[in-house]
């Protein structure tokens, strides 16, 4: 960061480009009127950090190349990968199914985020709350004026599938639903994306990674995910315990939490569960909870 010759590619975040060169804002807006909302400083802050070039070009309806070319004129160096890096989150994996027949759900929660966005607020908290309540046979329908690529990518990581229906230039319906309970990508991709800071923090990390890895490998493809970071106080513990009640003995529960939930630990012992913990970043720990006797 800080050098003028910044290399950008399909996986560069829009926020990084804007930080490097504020002038890029107008260049990006010129690409598609849909990017005009980036002029709103609040939305810019919210969306740009979650959106990669690949996602943005999809929102703008252009190719990654077409998106990057004008930026090259501003002094950015184009990276080798103007296509997606294999294994990284991007359009191909996260686009969801577009145009196919919509899956059928027992119940659908509808959330129109257009008024929230035009008021300059972030709908993410509402959306995350809503998806937490989804059962196996229900879906969340987001009504928006553009395809919510960053959201699709975010929820994909949390184990939600999506299905997008473009009803016009300014009307997109996106359904989110719980994927089959298995989330095979999770152990592998999570391990790879392990925070580099945490890795370099010291010798203890070797043991830590190994202890985590052993269990993570054992339950590869057999993990359910649960993110309780946005839940108010007593709910994280209750939600985790309820999920554990439903957890089949052969599976593990991967929990994203703001801190180590110390009061949960005696409950886990009581219920015959074991756990591994790792710190992903400040204010983000992960717990892998599994039945003690399961080998």
């Amino acid at each position: 960061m800080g050098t003028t010759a910044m290399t950008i590619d399909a996986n560069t975040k829009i926020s990084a480009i804007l930080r490097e060169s504020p002038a890029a804002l107008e260049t990006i807006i010129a690409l598609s009127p849909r990017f005009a909302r980036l002029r709103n400083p609040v939305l810019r802050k919210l969306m740009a950090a979650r959106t990669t070039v690949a996602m943005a070009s999809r929102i703008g309806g252009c190719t990654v190349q077409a998106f990057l070319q004008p930026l090259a004129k501003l002094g950015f160096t184009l990276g080798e990968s103007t296509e997606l890096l294999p294994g990284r989150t991007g359009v191909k994996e996260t686009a969801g199914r577009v145009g196919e027949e919509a899956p059928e759900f027992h119940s659908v929660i509808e959330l129109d985020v257009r008024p929230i966005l035009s008021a300059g607020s972030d709908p993410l908290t509402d959306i995350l709350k809503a998806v937490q309540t989804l059962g196996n046979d229900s879906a969340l329908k987001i009504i928006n004026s553009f395809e919510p690529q960053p959201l699709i990518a975010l929820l994909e990581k949390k184990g939600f599938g999506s299905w997008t229906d473009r009803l016009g230039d300014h009307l997109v319906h996106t359904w989110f639903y719980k994927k089959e309970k298995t989330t095979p990508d999770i152990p592998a991709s999570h391990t790879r994306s392990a925070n580099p800071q945490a890795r370099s923090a010291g010798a203890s990390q070797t043991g830590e990674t190994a202890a985590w890895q052993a269990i993570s490998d054992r339950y590869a493809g057999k993990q359910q995910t649960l993110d309780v970071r946005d839940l108010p106080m007593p709910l994280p513990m209750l939600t985790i315990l309820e999920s554990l009640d439903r957890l089949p003995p052969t599976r593990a529960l991967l929990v994203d939490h703001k801190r180590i939930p110390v009061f949960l630990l005696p409950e886990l012992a009581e219920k015959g569960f074991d756990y591994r913990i790792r710190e992903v970043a400040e204010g983000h720990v992960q717990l892998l909870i599994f039945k003690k006797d399961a080998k």
Partner: protein
Amino acid sequence: MTADTKTKKSNTTYKVVLPFYLYAGLAFATATTLLFTSSDALRSHFFQPKLLAITHTMALGWGTMIILGASYQLLPVLTQRRLYSVKLAGLSFVLAALAIPLLVYAFYTFDLGWPAITGGSGVVLAVSCYLINVFGTVGKKENIHAVFCATAAGWLLLTTLTGLALIIDFTSPFLPKGALAYLPLHAHIGIAGWFLGLIVGVASRLIPMFLISKYTNERLLQTIFWLLNGGLLLFLLLFFGEAELAYYAFPIACLAVALALFGYYCYRCYHLRLRRRTDAPVRISLASVVMMLAPLFLLAAIITGSLAGSPDSRLVLVYGFFIFFGWITAIILGMTFKTLPFIVWNKTYHRRAAAAQPPNPKDLGSDQLFSVMILSWLAGLLIVLAGIGCRSHLLLRSGSAFLIATAFFYNLNIWKIIAHKPSDHERHHQ
């Protein structure tokens, strides 16, 4: 910022929290020892030097110190914000730790000159630091639990200010009605405003958490808040309006309804709990909720007695003794072992939880020590109460000996928890 400094930054509170627990344990031991050596004092009038010394060791050194320490840990959890200032928290400890012994010494020797005034001022300063910290941490739109804490902190400052005024009045009189007339004011706002307010506010969050109960009822808690604090304001109005004693039935009724509603709240939490087996510390904490009702009846009896002439001074002694050695001690004995092991566990295993297989936080203390402590406390409490009732020297002595044993087991257990070190196997991964 490296991962290392980040961890340090988010984990500094325990350093300031642990001294409060250690100090409180020692204060409890001191108070029970003083009770033993001055047990004769419990056979006469309540307003006398030795009892003042014991009461203040219990109220400040034991009750208030542990609540201050626990608040610094709990406020960030209740409000989901960082503690406003760790330095200010440390300063409040140093000030209170120096001032309380001075004040207690002054009462014990009844030297109400400079030791009492310096000690009293130190306590006021320590509480001011606490108040600033609470108000700095609590946001504008905060949940009812945090509002309870902030209001209670306000009452605490008022209590210590009146206390200081009383001390100054002893040496250079300035209060229109004389110091003794203001004693009920000092005592009631301290007990109901500070202790009761804070305990209701914090317990209404912790009890459902420890029972793993889904029950929440913000409106009920708001009603309790207004009844409690409204009742206290009404008491202040009556006090300064020099109302007839009979009118004090109204604030007592407010408090009684508030306590009954809080009892109902706890009952609902208990009823809707997910965890079928409750552990001993939670059972003791729940018992202390029921115990809150007894002082209220005693207070009503004292006032009725005053209306009929003068109340039996034993009633006042029982009231004071039961509040500090019964109710407040019960909740501290219970809650210490639901908070301290987790604070120490977090301190010890925060960095290595991932590498090693850390022990269950619950197992840092000793269950046996806990049980013996509760038994000797219960025995001590009942025997001393009986001793006050029949003015028996023998009962007072033996009862307070049981309470010394309670303090001994308490201290042993918290020292064991605080001194916890990871085993060789766990350290290996460090």
